[in-house]
């Protein structure tokens, strides 16, 4: 039944469904989730599609259990994923931390809505940008991609799986309600044109294998349950063997490793879309559904001869600090439209370091910016 996992061809589907199809094409065969608006359609698609390819869909009792179950499945050697939105993402934070600490590959799709608390279940938000980065206690590196269309929901979910296997950690697909519920053409390429990263397996004998070793900034290959390596996997601070060691020295190595494998590889992970940046005096920085409106605003202004550019963040984390730092020396202002009270704007301002103005255009959720609004604010800095 494997031929049904990649539905090569043209489809007219929404972003939630495209996330599910991306997961299947990337080799996901286990999904554990809990219904939540506006991410339920990801689970519904998986409930129908996974059995067709011999995979397992299970609806858990809550998001805590969903996250725990996908970690367990991943250690069983199967690519796994879950989907949720703000409140469920909050509940997952505990076991996201376990996934970071135990270096467990898996993908969490978050179709963001307005928060805090129950907030706006059915309406758009980009409220979890910082929760994704800092939501679980302690330090760890974060990888999050942000699709701006159903096509990207498909493409970036595959990328998220590849990054999670490569860096051995949970990776987030931070979509938003508008993109998740937007129906557009999605082209699923032939299987041979889709790059799918396979999990590296240890090649050494058991006594030489260090499952949590750091080679350069890269994680060790992963021995799964039943491989005979008898790995101990713990959320406690552990040494390279995985044995718990409660000392400052081992903590130092352990935490630095899970932070630095992302930080030192940021240049390989970061993806941005650069639109008319060369001579720009003002650059709009946007992501998700907001970047579509921003693109319209920038293109209109360019046609009228204004020196405006767009930096679209395809990966939100790690943040493209080098690009923003370089632009900070060139532009007068960064305009950051986002559907929250200034989460990414904070990162832009921090990176700009006072060399260019950072202007937040915040919406608290429930609606999107209009191109005119963006043009008006951009116009004030030209």
């Amino acid at each position: 039944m494997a031929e049904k996992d990649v539905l090569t061809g043209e489809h007219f589907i929404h972003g939630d469904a495209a996330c599910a199809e991306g997961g299947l094409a990337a080799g996901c065969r286990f999904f554990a989730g809990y219904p939540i608006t506006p991410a339920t359609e990801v689970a519904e698609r998986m409930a129908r599609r996974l059995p067709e390819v011999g995979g397992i869909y299970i609806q858990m009792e809550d998001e805590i259990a969903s996250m725990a179950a996908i970690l367990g499945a991943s250690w069983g050697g199967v690519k796994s994923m879950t989907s949720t939105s703000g409140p469920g993402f909050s509940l997952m934070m505990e076991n996201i931390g376990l996934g970071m600490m135990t270096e467990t590959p898996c993908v969490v799709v978050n179709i963001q809505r307005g928060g805090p608390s129950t907030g706006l279940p059915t309406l758009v938000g980009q409220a979890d940008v910082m929760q994704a980065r800092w939501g679980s206690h302690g330090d760890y590196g974060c990888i999050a991609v942000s699709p701006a269309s159903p096509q990207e929901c498909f493409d970036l979910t595959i990328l998220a799986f590849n990054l999670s296997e490569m860096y051995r950690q949970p990776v987030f697909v931070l979509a938003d309600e508008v993109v998740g519920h937007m129906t557009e053409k999605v082209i699923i390429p032939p299987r041979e044109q889709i790059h799918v990263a396979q999990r590296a397996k240890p090649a050494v004998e058991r006594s030489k294998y260090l499952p949590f070793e750091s080679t350069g900034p890269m994680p060790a290959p992963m021995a799964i349950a039943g491989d005979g390596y008898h790995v101990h996997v713990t959320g406690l601070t552990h040494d390279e063997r995985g044995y718990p060691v409660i000392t400052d020295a081992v903590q130092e190595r352990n935490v630095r490793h899970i932070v630095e494998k992302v930080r030192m590889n940021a240049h390989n992970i970061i993806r941005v879309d650069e639109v008319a940046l060369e001579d720009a005096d003002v650059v709009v920085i946007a992501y998700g559904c907001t970047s579509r409106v921003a693109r319209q605003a920038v293109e209109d202004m360019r046609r009228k001869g204004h020196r405006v550019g767009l930096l679209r963040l395809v990966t939100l984390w790690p943040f493209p600090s080098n690009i923003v730092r370089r632009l900070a020396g060139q532009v007068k202002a960064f305009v950051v439209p986002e559907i929250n009270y200034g989460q990414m704007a904070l990162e832009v301002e921090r990176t700009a370091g006072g060399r260019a103005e950072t202007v937040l255009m915040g919406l608290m959720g429930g609606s999107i910016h209009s191109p005119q609004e963006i043009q008006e604010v951009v116009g004030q800095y030209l």
Partner: protein
Amino acid sequence: MKRHFRDIVPFDQDSADRAIEEGHGLHPLDEYLKPGRIPHIWCPGCGLGVVLTTYIEAIRRKGIPVDKCVVVSGIGCTGRVAGYLDMDTYHTTHGRAIPFATGLALVRPDLHVTVFSGDGDLFAIGGNHLIHGARRNINLNVICVNNFNYGMTGGQAGPTTPVDARTSTTPMGNAEPGFNLPHLAHASGAVYVARWTTFHPRQLVHSITETFDKKGFTFIEVIAPCPTGYGRPNKLGSGLEEMRYYKEMSEVRNGADPSKAEIRLKGKILCGTFINVERPDFLETYNNLVIAKAQGRDKGKAA
């Protein structure tokens, strides 16, 4: 920003190997224990060693290769069981051993997945996961070590602490009744339910071997002394005396109704194998119902 950190101390494989060579081979069950992990952290007189040994004895008796055994634990003194066994072991978050094990067991039906955890982990913070795991009949063997308190954090009251019992957070006596664990497991759908104390290692080994043959969610409660957290404030004496107490208070009645198995302070402890029934597990139903339909294997119709 500029970053200043201390130098990282590299892992010293040689001294780790040396420690293993020196320390390994001293314990009769060493081949089942992870090299270099003993001495364990448990207190003298703790019942956890007995439970660990009975589990090892059960796999030995069944001849199950350790490569086919997986142990998943939560947090707490019992949660540390995973770390000592020489097999694939997963020490997860507090209360979440069952959902983690659910994911693992569903994708790897070839492995024997055992969840080892304490009463607080499985029935307070993890209570919801336990009842749903049992309801779904996931193919898991759950061994719950019940010592009537949170030992790791220094002896606080938990979901099994009987009314009137003293703990560090119930200094005047506990106002809440404890759960009757076998009754709850049975009502939630477990296909095998037993209770033993650490005074019954032979019966316990037998029960664990029985669960290896069962498909579905099995539950064994093991009453274990915790002289540090529970024995002392309740004047049960040393670990040995607490064990003697469990010997005197326990009454073995196989097949007894689990609803009658409630434990009161200084009351009788009903022991035995209470429930042993058959019911299709999650995967069997999923494969026969869901996958068969989705792949058009039932009646040759595509879904």
